[in-house]
């Protein structure tokens, strides 16, 4: 089985359970969208999958293999890539070096440039000097340089111009077409639902909705209801 599967995953942070009893399936060849309001636990969930946080219990399998006991780099070497929230470039390294740091084959720089031609002119620029949009492209490109089988992307759109987001989203579609499994975390639903196959809505650490993106697109009220459930009592 080629995919990412979470079963009864509970994650504690600072002694409190931030995500509870999560079941989630992100198959290869599909874009799975994870939506939810601020503080819902989306980042926490991705962090637990990639090993940034080591306090998860339950079962997380990648291609049928339990990865919960593995270190971060071991999970990465099994084909898991995690684009962290915020632009996690290596600021002192050049664009090319950033890509090489994530590369597992010699044609990596080439492939990334084919995907993001805007970066060609900046190849030898320090990554810290790039614009926000360029940095986000670099971070995604760097993750792809390692030829992942499952890609986790956290709030790619944050701080990016809508036009840039619109340019990047189809790339996920294209990757899924090549067999990569993608788990896309987004706070702003509309664009993500356009490219996604299945969607989960996370709310105060629990999955409150699961369904097809197409289905969810038509049901704004379902989405709103799910989000509203997260607001403190009294605001309803």
């Amino acid at each position, binding site marked *: 089985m080629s995919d990412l599967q979470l079963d009864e995953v509970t994650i504690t942070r600072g002694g409190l359970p931030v995500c509870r009893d999560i079941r989630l399936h992100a198959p290869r060849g599909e874009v799975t969208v994870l939506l939810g309001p601020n503080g819902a636990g989306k980042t926490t969930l991705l962090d637990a999958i*990639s*090993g*940034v946080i080591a306090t998860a219990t339950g079962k997380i399998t990648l291609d049928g293999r339990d990865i919960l006991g593995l*270190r*971060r*780099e071991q999970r*990465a*070497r099994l084909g898991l*890539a*995690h684009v*962290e929230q915020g632009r*996690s470039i*290596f*600021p*002192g*390294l050049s664009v090319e*070096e*950033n890509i*090489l*740091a*994530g590369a*597992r084959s010699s044609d990596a720089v080439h492939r990334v440039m084919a995907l993001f031609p805007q970066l060609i002119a900046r190849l030898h620029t320090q990554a810290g000097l790039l614009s926000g949009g360029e940095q986000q492209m670099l971070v995604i490109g*760097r*993750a792809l340089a*390692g030829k992942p089988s499952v890609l986790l992307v956290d709030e790619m759109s944050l701080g990016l111009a809508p036009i840039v987001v619109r340019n990047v989203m189809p790339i996920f579609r294209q990757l899924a077409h090549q067999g990569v499994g993608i788990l896309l975390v987004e706070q702003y639903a509309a664009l993500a639902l356009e490219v996604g196959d299945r969607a989960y809505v996370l709310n105060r650490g629990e999955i409150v909705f699961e369904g097809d993106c197409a289905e969810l697109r038509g049901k704004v009220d379902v989405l709103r209801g799910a989000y509203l459930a997260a607001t403190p009592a009294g605001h309803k």
Partner: protein
Amino acid sequence: MIQAAISGFVSGGAYATLGLSIVLVYRMMGVLNFAQAAIGAFGAYVAFVLFEGGMPYTLAVPLGIAAAAAIGALLGLVMSTWFSEAGAEVCSTVSVAALITLLAAGFRIFGDSPRSVPDFFSGASFMLFGVVITATGAVAIGGAVILAFAIGLLLRRTRIGILLRALSERPTTAELLGIRARRLTLIVWAFAGAVSALAILIIAPTRTSAFLGLSMLIVPALAAALIGLLRSLEAAVLGGLGMGMLEGVATSIPDLAPYRQVLPFLVIATMLLWTERAEVWDARR
């Protein structure tokens, strides 16, 4: 005067080399390692003891260097296992604990009496521009310069250099890319340990080489590293050389000689004050 300064070549080269290993560990691992000289001294002492036991020096030296590399790697293992999420302050404190442990262990294993240390180049020297330069001095200086150059080149031009810099800038992100952080960490610590042993081995014949005294060479080495603000390899080498030569001059002036040990403290204090004033410290964080 010039001859006096030149007599500081050996110390200068050793300070520079120790300073280099301190800068390397600080830049790559974020740890100010106060035990760096003690690790080198431990390795050097292993070589001395093996030599006294009848082993040829050419065999004892590599074994001593290997011992220092192993101790360095062990400290690196401790750091990466239990203190990988801890800040620079905690890690540096751990290195002080390591220094104390090494001093105690060294005292028990090697005793406190100075060793008879063979001079590898048996006092060979040559004349250049009318001053006498010992072979040891030339090797110490040349070695430090070449080492700085080689490390710089490695960090900038090789794949392992890219991975190391990535790891030092964002350890978690580097691990998420599949970079084998632990392995790289151990390599850096072991390399720094080996280099420190070399530095101590070269300076030991010129000193009364008790274990404690050699371990305390961390002070001038730190001063050298601080001249490069713990970042610049080149400045650390120049700083080390400068300090060695100043020390040589101070030694030749009878009124100053007793106070020459104070020199590195002056340099350290000056550098710290200057960095505070210039807010370089702040900008780096």
